[in-house]
């Protein structure tokens, strides 16, 4: 009896999607330095200004956008770190949030910035 193999190997992204990813990837990498600089500035302000909430809110916006596309563009580590930073920032947002939550959030954002630094310094276009 002949066994018929109905399974199919995973299909690679087709050409149209691959071209789309390649085109977006370059522009995404080019945008990272500015995003890292803004995140850095926001975290300094969060540490020094009395109301950290508004700086965290803007940081959430930035890391959320990074988390939304980084993995699709091949930057898995950056995507994971951004996702974690977004989660940590979320726990530091409520007015009653404890100081340690804010410190942990800032640390998580720092990891994102470090990862961006590595990507931009190495000149890579995919992680």
């Amino acid at each position: 009896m002949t066994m018929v193999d109905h399974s199919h190997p995973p299909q690679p992204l087709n050409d149209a999607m691959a071209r789309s990813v390649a085109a977006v990837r370059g522009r995404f990498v080019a945008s990272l330095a500015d995003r890292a600089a803004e995140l850095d500035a926001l975290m300094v302000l969060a540490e020094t200004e009395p109301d950290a909430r508004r700086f965290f809110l803007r940081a959430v916006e930035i890391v959320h956008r990074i988390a939304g596309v980084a993995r699709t563009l091949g930057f898995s580590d950056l995507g994971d770190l951004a996702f974690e930073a977004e989660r940590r920032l979320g726990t530091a947002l409520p007015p009653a949030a404890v100081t340690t939550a804010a410190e942990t959030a800032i640390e998580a954002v720092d990891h994102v910035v470090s990862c961006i630094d590595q990507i931009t310094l190495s000149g890579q276009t995919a992680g």
Partner: protein
Amino acid sequence: MRLLAVDDDHFARDLLFGALASSGYDDLVMAASGHEALDILVKTSRPFDAFLLDIRMPGMDGIELCARIRGMDQYRNAPILMITAMSERHYIDGAFAAGALDYISKPFEALELGARLRTVERIVRQNHLVAQGNCEIDRLRSAREPGMAFDVDGPVEIVDVPRVVGLVAMENYLLRLTRWMTWQSESVAFTIDGFDTMTRFATPVEIYDILSDTADAIVRGLKRDNHLVTYVGNGTFVAVLHRKSSVSDPDTLMTIQALLDMAEPSLDSGVPCPLNLRVGPVYRPSLIAAGNPLALLTMPGKTRATTRSPRADAVQPKLVRGFA
């Protein structure tokens, strides 16, 4: 299939465009915000068949936009897919409660997106067939003859009650739940007493109103809890709730019955039609059973609902006299 996709991030929009185009969906309009999307919907001369919405957007978020689109007559049944990196349960609950058909997590895969859209395409084709058949339905409705043209077993879609979702959306919602979320959930079936008899005396419009009023009473009675309700046919609704809800609380059931008593329909046939609900046992999955979230939908229906919801006035139900 004409699509409107909304995302505030231009990289995400570009990727979405590439993924959709690579799956063969190139009749596509992109918007950068909820307000821009609504503006496009007002101005377009060609209606859209389906929507893809990012949840987290500044200003109007995707959940509010979903509810606004769902509120337009033209798009009452149009498939809406939420695409988001948010995995917390309140976002998932909120998306489906607002009328989403499905929920796709970022980062998305082009192949997965294509597969989901093929399901959407089938629904769009069904919607078109339904629209083409509306004349026949209108004729049947206008006939207003009891007992005709109503599929007693069928999962009629209740479209006018918040937190009541279609069967496909409920299945998609459950499939988005993690094992932990499933374990933290419970479900219960509510069945209208004597529904099959009722369908012989009531017109299709009256039956729809009865189902809608019943769904509304269930949702309002469960108001303290996060829940979604779907109609599964045969006069039975299934509510999926967060565990430790108040669904077993007699006060909740009494509230639901009191709301039903106030909504007692008046049938053209003159047959009295008080609404009474039977409530089944609450299904709470074990940690092992939580591996199958769809059991939250199927298990309550398997156990016949036998507990009659308490009536505030404790009057002998008139339903038995009307339809026995």
